[in-house]
């Protein structure tokens, strides 16, 4: 059976090169990087090289990178640590379409008594800079705005946001978990104060992330403990995974041009074929400002979970914003915030590609989808309208 993986915004295939780079740190190089002997010192050197590789991908200084266990930890550290360690009262500004790893800590701070403002998005999932300006005028804030959306791939105007936040004397964090490695991210050109990234979206195994913290940014550590990571994150460093993340970032840097050409061409090919083969389909999100690998598309009158199970039977992996797949009864908060009608939300499918996909796979998926959509519409009481 075919095996076509189009769910790379959920997690990615581990790159063989990354596994190779990690292996010595499971076997020979097992020392604690904080130790004052050769076992530790030899390991520390590799960890610091990984820090340089991560910094290079986003054009940061290595001293501005701390390693974490995942994107969620990076987001929690930046938002809770940034607000609680600011030394002045801050509001919290975010958007309605953020990942739960950002909305969670923002709403936690709201419950703890901070003013929290969640900015709206328009019908294509794009934010409004005027609304941001109004929110900033209500007092100094920590602003957390994603670089690119995990469900729709919509890219926010982070450069303009950074300019506005800086002018207001506020702090900017961006969840760039989906953007890093897919589009160029440069913290000198786009002066954010903090930036989260995650390893397993970049072809490392799950269990490692990083947070960029611009020099001079006040932050209260989220993980309290030892003096690791310059006192900004307690806990013995997860060396094999950190080395893997370094390796993945170096590869990602060299592959970014391919994302904009090869991966984007495959995604466009899929979009075009699906729209041609499946009537009553609509693309969700701002197609002019979108990650090269992401396609979010709704099929009216049918339901996402059913589509995913049929796709899975045919060896294809994707995901859906349907209520039935969310673990609750609520459909995607991102598509709802965009005002996508319920009928289209429940039939929404996200295809997210990687550089490992091929044209042949894309054509196969489009063919599968045409059959599945036809079959499910024959079953649906609304299918013949």
């Amino acid at each position, binding site marked *: 059976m075919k095996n076509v993986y189009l769910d790379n915004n959920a997690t990615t295939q581990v790159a063989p090169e990354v596994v190779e780079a990690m292996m010595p740190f499971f076997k020979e190089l097992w020392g604690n990087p904080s130790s004052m002997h050769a076992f530790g010192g030899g390991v520390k050197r590799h960890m610091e090289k990984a820090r340089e590789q991560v910094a290079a991908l986003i054009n940061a200084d290595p001293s501005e990178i701390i390693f974490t266990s995942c994107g969620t930890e990076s987001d929690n550290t930046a938002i809770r640590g940034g607000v609680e360690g600011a030394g002045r009262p801050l509001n919290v500004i975010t958007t309605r379409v953020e990942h739960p790893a950002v909305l969670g800590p923002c709403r936690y701070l709201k419950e703890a008594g901070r003013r929290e403002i969640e900015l709206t998005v328009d019908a294509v999932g794009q934010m409004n800079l005027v609304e941001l300006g109004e929110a900033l005028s209500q007092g100094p804030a920590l602003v957390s705005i994603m670089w690119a959306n995990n469900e729709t791939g919509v890219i926010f105007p982070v450069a303009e946001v950074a300019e506005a936040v800086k002018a207001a004397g506020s702090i900017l964090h961006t969840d760039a978990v989906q953007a890093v490695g897919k589009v160029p991210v440069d913290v000198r050109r786009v002066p954010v104060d903090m930036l989260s990234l995650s390893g397993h979206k970049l072809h490392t195994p799950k269990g490692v992330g990083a947070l960029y913290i611009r020099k001079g940014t006040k932050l209260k550590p989220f993980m309290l403990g030892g003096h690791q990571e310059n006192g900004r994150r307690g806990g013995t460093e997860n060396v094999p995974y950190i080395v893997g993340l370094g390796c993945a970032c170096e590869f990602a840097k060299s592959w970014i041009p391919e994302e904009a050409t090869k991966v984007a061409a495959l995604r466009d090919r899929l979009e075009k074929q699906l729209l041609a083969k499946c009537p009553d389909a609509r693309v969700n999100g701002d197609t002019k400002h979108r990650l090269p690998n992401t396609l979010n598309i709704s099929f009216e009158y049918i339901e996402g979970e*059913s589509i995913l199970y049929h796709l899975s039977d045919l060896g294809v992996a994707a995901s859906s914003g349907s209520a*039935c797949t969310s673990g609750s009864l609520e459909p995607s908060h991102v598509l709802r915030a965009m005002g996508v009608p*319920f*009928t289209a939300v429940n039939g929404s499918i996200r295809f997210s590609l990687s550089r490992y996909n091929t044209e042949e796979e894309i054509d196969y998926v489009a063919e599968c989808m045409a059959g599945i959509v036809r079959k499910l519409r024959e*079953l649906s*009481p609304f299918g013949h309208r």
Partner: protein
Amino acid sequence: MWDYTDKVLDHFRNPRNVGVIPDPDGVGEVGSLACGDALKLTFKLAPDGRIADAKFQTFGCASAIASSSALTEIIKGMTLDEAERVTNQDIAHYLGGLPEQKMHCSVMGREALEAAIDNHRRGTTAKKILQGRVICNCFGVTESEIERVCRENRLTTVEQVTNYTKAGGGCGNCKPQIEDILRRVLSEQARAQTPVAQVKSAAPLTHLKKIRLIEETIEREIRPKLLQDGGDIELVDVIGNRVVIALRGMCAGCAVASVTMKDVIETALREFVSPDLEVEEARQ
């Protein structure tokens, strides 16, 4: 992925009886595109009054399609009186079980069947009509529907009610009302299981009878709840309408002991023995 049984996956992949029967004897429609699932059921009766054919169309997830397919298989050959007694449990059972969060799919099947039978017998509209007070506005679930599902499935938590009816699964504002309904149904069920309620309304209690009833109520209604939290209770004395008790185990010295006294112990004794009772803790 959900933990679906092979039978669910089989009925999802190869649904039986898909379509619409032309000129049917009964039509039932429930759900909508906005709700995330919908089912249209049609059936045709044979001259002997049995269901000769049943067909469905479903918009929904894998378990919604499988539940609809199972429903049509179950009711074929049944009389309408038999079909009327089919519960959502029967549908779930036929499929070898459904994940708890997907039980509402089986309820949707039973509702469509009910609407179709009503449509045949009374010529009412095929669409399920919301009768009585609507509790969940997000998914259009009424008080009577919640009560019925609670009873038929012996539900005990709000989360279960949401899994079975979807009520409370949207904005969540109706959860306190669901809690009230659940409490009412549970206490009705508890009363139905015991003859105590009848005793209560009969002749005035003698002191001896009162003590016995208090002891019975403590054993049946109160002690099990306290034991769950590692506590216990002992009846010390009954003086007129004053019930003197001692809290033991974790309950002794518990910061919320006074709440337990009023909310759990006194409420139960007043309900099952006499509304005049006052509970107090024995002095050590």
